[in-house]
């Protein structure tokens, strides 16, 4: 029987770009241990070797020639080379590219995200923990112990906070259908609205959890969308940064002008106004879910 998980399912066949690097090699092993079908890796100049039994190629082209079943790539290459790695994956025909790398220049991100959209392909990230469909597979760096198979769809802008909330959801016995990190940078491939829609159409997902943070207007845009479409599945949210002082830039992503939006209050109001329940502590979400499901 096929699962109905989004983005990562039984058919997912993975290429690891930057597989011989410290993070690439380490997480290749963890993905394989989790049951993900990692079929090949790429590091220019290291072709012919193997990492944890996975063959390494010099280019995405040669990897795809040998393994035409590859449909998903995960990118660990350093920020300086990430734009090129993603363009290479897209040119070779890969459908979903998960970009783990942190610190990619904004202009490179804009170029790669627009290129993928013009080709009707999917970018997850950059600066994302990736995607996990518990019990099915993970294309990412998240610690698998925090996740268990279940009915809650989780979508988040923050990596580690996703683990925190997911673990609470696992502990109360509900588990997750799929967990998607859209990435913490100002510009991302998939956004909240697109992943939310995937969860609405996903039979395995009974409720949706949104994990946001202050800055930008991604949460407000989702709220607008839900307000227009109506609440089709129970949706709950946690937003980090309630007590962050205004005018300070928390982390690397907060600087770009946000059109007067982006405070905790503006996000809470927008989401509540759209029928989304907003909570102040990560563990309150799992308790509330128990009452709903």
């Amino acid at each position, binding site marked *: 029987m096929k699962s109905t998980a989004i983005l990562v399912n039984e058919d997912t066949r993975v290429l690891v770009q930057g597989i011989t690097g410290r*993070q690439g090699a380490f*997480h290749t092993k*963890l993905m394989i241990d989790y049951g993900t079908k990692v079929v090949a890796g790429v590091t220019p100049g290291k072709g012919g070797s193997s990492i944890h039994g996975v063959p390494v190629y010099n280019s995405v082209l040669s990897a795809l020639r040998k393994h035409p079943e590859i449909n998903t790539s995960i990118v660990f290459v350093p*920020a*300086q080379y990430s734009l090129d790695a993603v363009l290479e994956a897209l040119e070779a025909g890969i459908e979903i590219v998960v970009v*783990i790398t*942190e*610190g*990619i*220049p*904004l*202009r490179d991100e*804009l*170029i790669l*995200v*627009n290129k993928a*959209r013009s080709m009707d392909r999917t970018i997850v990230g950059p600066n994302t*923990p990736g995607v996990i469909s518990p019990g099915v597979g993970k294309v*990412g*760096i*998240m*610690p698998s112990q*925090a996740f268990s198979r279940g009915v809650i769809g989780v979508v*988040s802008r*923050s*990596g*580690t*906070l996703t*683990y*925190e909330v997911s673990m609470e959801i696992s502990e109360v016995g509900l588990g997750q259908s799929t967990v998607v990190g859209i990435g*913490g940078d*100002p*510009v991302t491939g998939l956004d909240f609205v697109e992943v939310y829609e995937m969860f609405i159409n996903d039979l395995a997902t009974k409720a949706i959890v949104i994990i946001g*943070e*202050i800055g*930008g*207007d*991604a949460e407000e*845009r989702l709220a607008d969308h839900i307000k227009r479409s109506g609440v089709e599945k129970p949706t709950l949210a*946690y937003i*980090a*940064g309630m*007590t*962050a002082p205004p005018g*300070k*830039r*928390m*982390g*690397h*992503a907060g*600087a*770009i*002008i*946000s*059109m*007067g939006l982006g405070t905790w209050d503006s996000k809470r109001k927008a989401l509540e106004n759209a029928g989304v329940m907003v909570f*102040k*502590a*990560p*563990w309150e979400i799992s308790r509330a879910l128990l009452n709903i499901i």
Partner: protein
Amino acid sequence: MKLYEYEAKEIVSKHGVKVPRGFLAASINEVRDAVKKLGGEVVLKSQVLLGRRGISGGIRFAKTLKEAEEASLELLKMRISGEEVKQLLVEERICVDKELYLALTIDRPRRAYAILASTLGGVEVEELVKRYPNALIKITVDPVTGPALFTSRWLVEFYNLSKDLEPQVLKIIDSAWRLVVEYDAELVEFNPLALSCSGELIALDVKIVIDDNSLYRHRGLMDKAYRGLSDAEAIAKRHGLSYVELSGNIGILCNGAGLTMATMDLVKIYGGEPANFLDIGGGASSDQVREGVKLLLTNPRVKVILVNVFGGITRCDEVAEGVISAISEVGSVKPIVVRLIGTNDSIGRGILMEKGVKAFSSLREAVATAVELAR
């Protein structure tokens, strides 16, 4: 990373954008020379990277040499948002007919750049958006091909300028776009952009912010990234950590901006006050963790340290090693509450336990303990 106004003006004037004539001055003597060379009324502008200069009194007008001397004496003693004023930009005073606003920045929802323009110059963009949305237009700029040709035509019409000024508007747009392509600018702002009494467009102030992530390809700008930072912020930056000083006594170190902010929120909810925001990012090495913990150990305001790491790409063993070596280097007796979970957490907890540091796995318990210890 922000450039000083005088640096920004130097760049855009090379691109053909008109700016007031001016000289940089770091002493009264240099101010005097500048005023003499300029002749007539002048503007004295503090060169700082932080804060709101206008409201803080960092800009002064002077009609005579004497007035300029007096004003600069005061300005060169000033601090604006904690930053010492070391240099003044002394400029000719421009007779202004109309003040406009023009900026090129990122448009997140469209995943593109955008030109923002307003007929209300001199106002901060946040104010414009909130209060005068009708006086603002946004024109999308393709991240690959740059501003379309019609952009200058639209702007001339929107600003209600004479058609003769279109080439000048085009020069300003081109300059902003060159800053994106050549310098990875994430914000180029001309505010105010003056229509002078003699009918010219002159950029009275120019603000340029460069994307920090791009600095590896702009070697010449790299040292400038440390200007305007406090000592602690500079140390953090050098080690790839993101650090913001706050006012409480609980030092916080986490991995990921979201988790760091969430931990701050929980500390507050439990009745404590965070001393800082410190995000070690993803995949931090034990060296980075050590430097981060040392920053907090050596901060006299910090009474208790709360380390909250949920390992994914970050490995808990690296974190534990960093914590231990910071403690042994500083030889501090401050209590450290560690919460470690995720990738390699049992190895990490073992390393800590060996040295007598208790590690929690529950976030609630860790936060409650830290707040209790800080009382």
